[in-house]
């Protein structure tokens, strides 16, 4: 079943993918123009493209983008600081790992966005509640992967370094960190992605500003074509950010 794909197959599969995307665009276009689907439900893709171009040209997205990215930067910084510190401290003792790791894993399995109304009650509708919930949600993958990363370091490395006279600092800098880094970097990337999703979600659910809020306010005023344009814009931003952190992750793995 796992025979290496032939060059012709690889080429054909690209063709299928391109045909799928083209077919999707064609169905969208025909549904909006010929088949009489209500324009309030499905705008003409040409109008959406024009709106997207207009949004990019006028720069009206800049305020919302700044809000969202600012919240993301603050939330992710808090989660990284808290998650790395907590994860490292817990990972130092197998006993603490046994006590806390299932607790964090159990909490992480609950959709934490459920607690958004509480965050809004405490921190208001502004950026503070988004930062708080983004940090709270992205704390878990970072902490769990930090525990797994440091916890998975082979005891042999530590013993060998110690017997060669490594100090605490040297042990940390040249043994523990390089050995744990790949798993931790994965945790950081997951934390970044979840923070981004949490922030857009909380802007969508309750806020005054940001990209998520923009999509909702356009939906509420039934400006469907600009709303589609913003959806495309946000998906593109998310894809760019995720590609960026994936690249950083790969580079960090190579340079450790």
């Amino acid at each position: 079943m796992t025979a290496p794909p032939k060059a012709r197959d690889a080429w054909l599969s690209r063709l299928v993918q391109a045909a799928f995307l083209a077919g999707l665009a064609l169905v969208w276009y025909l549904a909006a123009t010929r088949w009489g689907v209500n324009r309030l439900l499905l705008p003409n893709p040409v109008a959406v493209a024009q709106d997207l171009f207009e949004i990019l040209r006028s720069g009206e997205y800049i305020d919302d983008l700044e809000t969202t990215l600012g919240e993301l930067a603050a939330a992710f910084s808090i989660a990284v600081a808290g998650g790395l510190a907590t994860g490292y401290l817990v990972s130092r003792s197998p006993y603490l790992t046994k006590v806390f790791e299932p607790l964090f894993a159990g909490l992480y399995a609950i959709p934490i966005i459920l607690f958004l109304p509480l965050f809004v009650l405490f921190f208001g509708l502004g950026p503070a509640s988004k930062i708080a919930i983004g940090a709270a949600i992205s704390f878990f993958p970072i902490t769990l992967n930090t525990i797994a990363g440091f916890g998975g370091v082979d005891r042999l490395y530590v013993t060998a370094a110690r017997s060669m006279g490594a100090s605490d600092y040297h042990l940390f800098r040249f043994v523990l960190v390089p050995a744990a880094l790949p798993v931790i970097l994965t945790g950081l990337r997951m934390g970044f992605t979840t923070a981004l999703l949490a922030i857009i979600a909380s802007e969508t659910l309750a806020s005054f500003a940001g990209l998520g809020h923009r999509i909702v306010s356009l939906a509420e005023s039934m400006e469907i074509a600009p709303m589609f344009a913003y959806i495309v814009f946000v998906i593109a931003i998310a894809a760019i950010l995720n590609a960026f952190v994936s690249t950083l992750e790969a580079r960090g793995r190579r340079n450790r």
Partner: protein
Amino acid sequence: MKRAPSPLRAYLARRPGLARLFVIAALFVVWEVSARWFVDPLFLSPPSKVIASLGALFGTPGVPAALRITLFELAVAFVIAVAIGLVLGLAIGLQPFVRLSVFPIVLLLYGMPQITILPLFILYFGIGAASKIAFGVTHGMFPVVMTVVAGVQNLKPILMTSARSMGASRWQIFRHVIFPHMVPSFFAGMRLGMSGVLLGVLLAELYVSIAGIGYFTTLFTQNFEPAKLLGLIGTLAAMAIFLNALVRRAETHFGKWRAG
């Protein structure tokens, strides 16, 4: 000189599970103390008051119905997500060419932030159960597809070859080779699918603020009734924990044949 550990510490050292319960209990004590004496009661209620007001919460007209409907949406969305995920996963995973061409499209769709299209779901399916079920399905089906495809892919080619060389029919190969090998990863997928369904349904429930859970969370927030708000959110969290535990138990039960 090292002091001998106290009996309690020695006891706890052998039972990390018990120590974990102590940590949870300590968190509740901190919450109780801070809410009772240090935080404005308009914003935070102590757990004792939250539990005491559960009766009033479930007595609020509409709340039990909203919780029941949410549970119904979760169940329906989960069943649909698993069914679609299984069929799609098998269709994609069993044919190498289909996997090569279609799987990247699935990955692309799975990577999109679905929350951006939540308003569209409300627009298309209304504010009732349908939109919430649909949003739960789109969140839950992708993890199932991924794990089913991975499970089929991990099948050792030698098993297929030997089954075929012994004259097994297509159905026999599916029933006796593919299916048993898929079971563990399928249940792992169900667990991830449940996380997705919970996220999707609850996001949609919170988004619609004129009916269901979202209406009551908005109402309790605006009226500064933190005890009721915490009770409602706590009930939903308990629901999520229960459903997660259910699929996790199924996963360990059905996943262990390979180890034996």
